[in-house]
């Protein structure tokens, strides 16, 4: 399927999103709520582009991350109105993430006006929803979005320590604004109002995961029984492959 992006012809797979095509072809489109692992959510609206499909007389604005390509089309990823939309979105989100470097940088880049900051919970959260997906992907679904409209926020159910949270911090790692606080001290990790004991790597001694996380992972058949941190596990894997090949 032939798709013209910014005047250049590209080949798309039927059904793939505009964003997936552009990512593959190295055409930049800014996003907040997209992640390769979860696909598009259509929530942040930063990825708006113009599309004119075969048979249409006028182009329209669509979210690149959720729009499936099904027929020949012309796409424009940068234009005055796209820029205007992105600038406003950055302006509106920057107030949620006061001094966050990412939003500061984007505000500068887009020349977004400065609106008074607002207090949100957790601080700096721009409600991209990635953490919810990350946690669901871990099989836990310990966090969700609570309330609706302007009161919407990410939380554990009833803001209490959740039985489902295993302290893996996958949510925090995926967060674009570092809004999810992970406090680590010695053998203890605190996240989402819950305290976890950390397990140390049997090779290098570094604290690297919570007990709950390891139990969960081993129950679900991943990883061996050895308690190794990421670095040591990679080393170990490389060693195994080497011995296997010999």
């Amino acid at each position, binding site marked *: 399927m032939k798709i013209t992006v910014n005047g250049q012809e590209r080949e798309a797979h039927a059904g793939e999103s505009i964003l997936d095509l552009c990512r593959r072809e190295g055409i930049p489109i800014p996003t907040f709520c997209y992640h390769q692992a979860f696909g598009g959510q259509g*929530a942040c*609206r930063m990825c708006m582009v113009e599309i004119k499909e075969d048979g249409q007389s006028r182009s329209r604005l669509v979210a690149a991350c959720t729009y*499936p390509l099904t027929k020949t089309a012309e796409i424009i990823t940068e234009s005055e109105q796209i820029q205007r939309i992105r600038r*406003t979105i950055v302006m*509106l*989100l920057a107030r949620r993430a006061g001094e966050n470097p990412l939003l500061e940088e984007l505000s500068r880049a887009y020349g977004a006006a400065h609106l008074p900051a*607002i207090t949100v919970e957790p601080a700096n959260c721009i409600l991209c929803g990635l953490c919810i997906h990350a946690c669901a992907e871990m099989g836990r679904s310990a966090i969700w979005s609570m309330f609706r*409209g*302007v009161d919407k926020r990410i939380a554990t159910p009833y803001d209490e320590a959740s039985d489902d949270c295993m302290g893996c911090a996958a949510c925090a790692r995926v967060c674009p604004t570092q809004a999810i606080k992970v406090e680590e001290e010695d053998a203890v990790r605190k996240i989402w109002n819950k305290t976890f004991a950390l397990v140390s790597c049997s090779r290098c001694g570094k604290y690297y995961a919570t007990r709950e996380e390891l139990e969960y992972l081993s129950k679900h058949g991943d990883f061996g029984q050895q308690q190794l941190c990421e670095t040591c596990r990679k080393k170990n894997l490389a060693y195994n492959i080497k011995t296997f090949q010999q």
Partner: protein
Amino acid sequence: MQTEMNLGSDDRQTVLVCCGTGCTANGGREVFNAFETSLQDHPEIQVLPVVKATGCNGWCEKGPLVRLLPRDITYCSVAPADVDEIINKTLLDGVLVKRLLYRDPVSKEHLTSHHLTDFYRKQHKIALRNIGEIDPGQIDDYVQRGGYQALQKALLGMKGQEVIDTIKASGLRGRGGGGFPTGQKWQACRNASGNTKYIICNGDEGDPGAFMDRSIMEGDPHTVIEGMILGAYAVGASHGYIYVRDEYDLAVQYLRKAVDDARQRGYLGNNILNTGFVFDIDLIRGGGAFVCGEETALIASIEGRVGEPHDKYIFPTEKGLWGKPTVINNVETWANVPVIVLHGPASFAAIGTANSKGTKVFSLVGKVVNTGLVEVPMGTTLREIIYEIGGGVLKKRSFKAVQTGGPSGGCIPAELLDLPIDFDSLTEAGSMMGSGGLIVMDDRTCMVEVARYYVNFLAGESCGKCTPCREGIRALLEILTRISEGQGSIGDLDLLEDISFTMQQASLCALGRTAPNPVLSTLRYFREEYLEHIEQHRCPAGVCRALSIFYIDPEVCNGCGVCARHCAVNAIQGEKKQAHVIDESICIHCGECYRQCAFDAIKLR
């Protein structure tokens, strides 16, 4: 078209007691019960009149209504205590109870039937054709008025495609707000591949103040059901859902009974009218938020997921409920379908404007003399609705604007009163048909406050998923609040417009895309009022408290004392028949006196 009244097949007297939600709240049920019991005390009557509880006649303001057939007499504001008099005088002696008749405010004449009032004369009922005429709990009442004949006609004599062609030819467009051509929607679903298809009736009606869909579901549930069966037959669906707003208990009750009765009669189930056609309906209670009425959110909600919208780049007609092709239509849309199929598309298409056919039900409320539900042909002007049907602006104040379409709509000024209203004319005017809300506003309405009211409503009703809507609404609300408090600046108007642009262009669903309409339409038609708030710190309607300072003009004041009695903080002093004075140090600027004074003696500084 056979939408005229049918006054019963025999001459037996019928008492129709309105027991819609409005009349019930005012004692309609008690009136109904009083008729049933009192009639028992009259062994001398040989053929007892039939007493029926009906759905809403759309004139709740004058309720509880009692109608007597075959003479077509309508009594207003009937109390249980009036029942004996009605029985003795009217039913037994044929004499009218004059004090219960509606008195035309202009001609001062007593009108024997509501059909003779200005409020009803100009109406044309298709979707509401049966409401008020039948007991919604009796399938036979519906059948007697031509109900389920369209179904027989279609199932026994038409192909599915012919039903779609009929709907297309009628020009019917969706009454749920968007105005999408119904036949085209059905065609897309029929053409979609797959054997499992669904039909949904959208009865969420989350618009504040709207009650047209409720009144149809409560007053004529079978027309919705018959419409859905016809739709199912046309597109090849075997299951349907009616999604009813959670608060609508009475609607749920009547719909449930109607579905059961229809099944018993063989209109629903595994072998409809012995043709082998299979279709059944389930009821679902709504999720509670305004946004749940949006079709993708509604589908998510039926599936048990969070009621949040999704991008609709693939239409529900292709991938809807549980990923299957789905037709979703509004209650009023469904209610038109049996009429179109039974009488053919031509008579329907003969009503209305070039691109909007048929009628539309509006809920006419606000500062207008007659309020209620009105069904008028598309293309009726705002002036006809507000002045002829509605009887003009209350208290003879001057008309300022009419808000149409609820939170997604806008305010239309006096210059456009002669606008023939249909889907396209309203959109062009910067408003929307929406679900059909019409709120009349007088000169004491502040347009900044109106915009603020709707944005504030949406702040709690948007789902909050996408940035333009959630953060845009937040920002609009802050700016409008600031302006209404006298803290606005000229730059705020540009900011309102800039944010609105992004909301319209980039929001995920139509809630966010239309949310700026109340703001943009008031900016478009009442910009000077915004400027007056910002530059002169003055609210010309006397609504925004921070900007309204009232004083009494001693030349005009006649000392009637009404204002003083209504002032909550006793800020107004004065001798009887002497000019009164407002003590500014006590006054809290609520404007109550301003609204109460019948002589316009209270002024704004």
